[in-house]
């Protein structure tokens, strides 16, 4: 190796070391591990997880100028979870299906389900464009366009959900960070 290449290799190592790289987040209950994007914060409410029988982590990123916190969440929904007794099918129906008994918000769209692979397992994914009104229930609240990417993996028992949510203004900028976190998902 020439001297120049050795320097370049060392500089590459230095560049990687300069940006703090958070440790891989391993769910205390096992089930999965994920590496948060640099600078993002891992948060969870273990007590609430226990109440819902859903165990997961929220990776919190930058907040947009409109007040929307970018978020990646990964959660394991046990077969006995209190939110979706019908498992992944009910989750997908409520999230990606249309139900004409109810009134959808104006301007909200959900893409068709797509096959994908997450953490080496087959998954189903979709993208939703929705809106938040911030601050809520006020005459001066601002309509903020939101982009969500949702991916569902069926486990032997229960299912996993990976979600990315950000304001439309920020979503494109954060896509690489999300892709890296997504690629780091390991099911244990």
């Amino acid at each position: 190796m020439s001297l120049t290449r050795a320097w370049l290799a060392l500089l590459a190592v230095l560049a990687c070391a300069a940006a703090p790289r958070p440790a891989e987040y391993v769910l205390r209950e096992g089930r999965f591990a994920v590496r948060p994007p640099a600078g993002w914060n891992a948060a969870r409410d273990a007590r609430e997880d226990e109440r819902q029988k859903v165990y997961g982590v929220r990776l919190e990123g930058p907040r947009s100028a409109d007040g929307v916190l970018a978020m990646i969440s990964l959660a394991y929904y046990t077969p006995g979870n209190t939110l979706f007794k019908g498992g992944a099918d009910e989750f997908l129906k409520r999230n990606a299906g249309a139900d004409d008994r109810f009134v959808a918000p104006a301007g909200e769209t959900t893409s068709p389900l797509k096959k994908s692979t997450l953490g080496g397992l087959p998954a189903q994914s979709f993208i939703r464009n929705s809106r938040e009104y911030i601050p809520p229930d006020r005459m001066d609240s601002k309509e903020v366009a939101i982009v969500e990417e949702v991916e569902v993996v069926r486990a032997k028992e229960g299912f996993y959900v990976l979600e990315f949510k950000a304001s439309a203004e920020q979503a494109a900028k954060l896509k690489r960070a999300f892709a890296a976190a997504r690629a780091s998902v390991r099911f244990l």
Partner: protein
Amino acid sequence: MGPLPPALLALLLAVPAAFAQSGFDFAHAEPQLYQELNPYYADEFLKHVDDQHANALQDADREARLVERATALKDMEDILVSYVGPAEMNEAFRARLIDDGSDPDGPKFLGFGAHPAALLAWRAKYFDYVPEGRVQMALWEWSTLLPEQQAFLAAPPRNLGESSWEATPFPTRLADLKLWGKDIYERMMKASPKTKAELDAMQNDRFRIWSVMDGEQKRLSGQQWLKASAAVEGLAKLDALPKSVRESSDPQVQELLARARSGASPQETLAALSTLFDKAGVRDDTVRTLAPDRPDQQVSAVPPGVLGSMLATGLTTEIADVPAGKTVADFYKTHPLTIAVRDIGAPLAQFEPATGAIVFNAQYVTDWIKSQGMGAQAVIADPARFHELVMILAPNFVHESTHKMQKAYADENGIFTWNGQHQEIEAKESQSEYMLEKTAKDPSYKQFLLREREHSHLVQQDLAQTASFARNPRDFRAVVMSDYYAGLPSLEAIESTTLTFLDSSIGALRGELKRRSALSPAALAALEASGKDKDEDFKTMREWQAYLTTVKTPVIQKLLADHVRTRDKAIKTYELTRAREDAAHDRTESDAAAVLRGDAPAKADPVPSPGAPR
């Protein structure tokens, strides 16, 4: 190659350490949280609930102080990492960096308010990937100020320069800069632009003082700018009016034209334009909406109390046929309901704990009346139209009534009502559950929503929130906490802060009793004979502590007993509130899931519309 390996080592060491194997007992935690202000350690500390319990068994007060410190560090970390805009970061600092360091015995904060430079150093140590310039702007560092701001601060009586400004606490910086922006703000709010250039000048003033305005000033100046824009755009249309209007001999038209061109405020200009356009058959929705209300469209056109009373009857009837609404309607069978409609600023509705009233925003109701092209009296005399007003207000009524129920539960159980995210999560879930159940059950309500979603800002908000809740209550909760009510503390943070304040006072009282135990019998007797008989309010802990040395011992004993009782009440408040919230979430999530699955396709009971024959 010489210096590089050590540099590489230093950089690697700068990567946040993992604390998974580190201890979280007092010996480990206190140096990390008090001296190092280590946010990474604080994150891990808060996750290790078992270790916190173990600490609490040893010394509950000491542990409560650690939790409070760790929460504050995590909060500050969130702000640094999450807020990409300096203005938003600055607003977050205004709410938190309130300690200017003048009270050494006051509650212990992180010290960044008194020493902004310490916050910059903290960023450099732990978050060097967060741009320094962003934090400097948010802290109003000298180099980020406008030249005119620097000149204002440098002039007498302040005579400040870069180094003296660096030593200036954040609250003082805020006060000084607000003073600089005051005249510009007042001039801007009184301006009445008539041309694009004048409008641009107004906007320029707004940008100049943007970084020093508070949230309310930003909101009000935004509203004023919106009205000024509509006025300028409306004035530009005058030349395009038919010649018959522009050169009309009708004195009223000429007077309206003159008033529009010379209006002393955007509101005056808009009022003249609105009437003029109506006369000329020109449709301009922006001018019409932003023009001042006609007297007969205002809520005050209805006799006081009549509208509130009609809404009380209408709303409780409207919501009672679905579970989420019935819970509220049943509550009002044993608790009084007062509804008022008056000016409350920007919120659509609010529960007033002091009076127990649910208050709706008079401007919102007036705008709705205007949108119907009717007067207020005509709306309340028309049952079908009034029912539409009831339907549009019902979800917010359920929301605010949930807050009233939270307060009633606290009062009936002798605990505090703590305002925090937990209350809003419950209220938002109840509001959304109501909309889901009502839409599934009542076809006329569904049709109403389909119609209104195209142009009602409130219905759009309600539908978006309800859809989010229906998709996944877990995500909805996260949105409520992170986006809707990010500024509110969690129930856990309130408990921790309350206990820290109480412990600080209890410590002062016990300290005084200890001091007295060492006094000579003669000195103690003199104090008991001439001491003061009651407590007083003081601004700082130090002043209060000094005062305590001058009161009779029974006063201190009573204060101590009161504080200990309050502490017990705080602990009971947390336990009961948490249990109540859990039960409410279980019920709401389960009821909503049943409706969404179609388990309970309840048929609507034949509830007549308010005002309709029964």
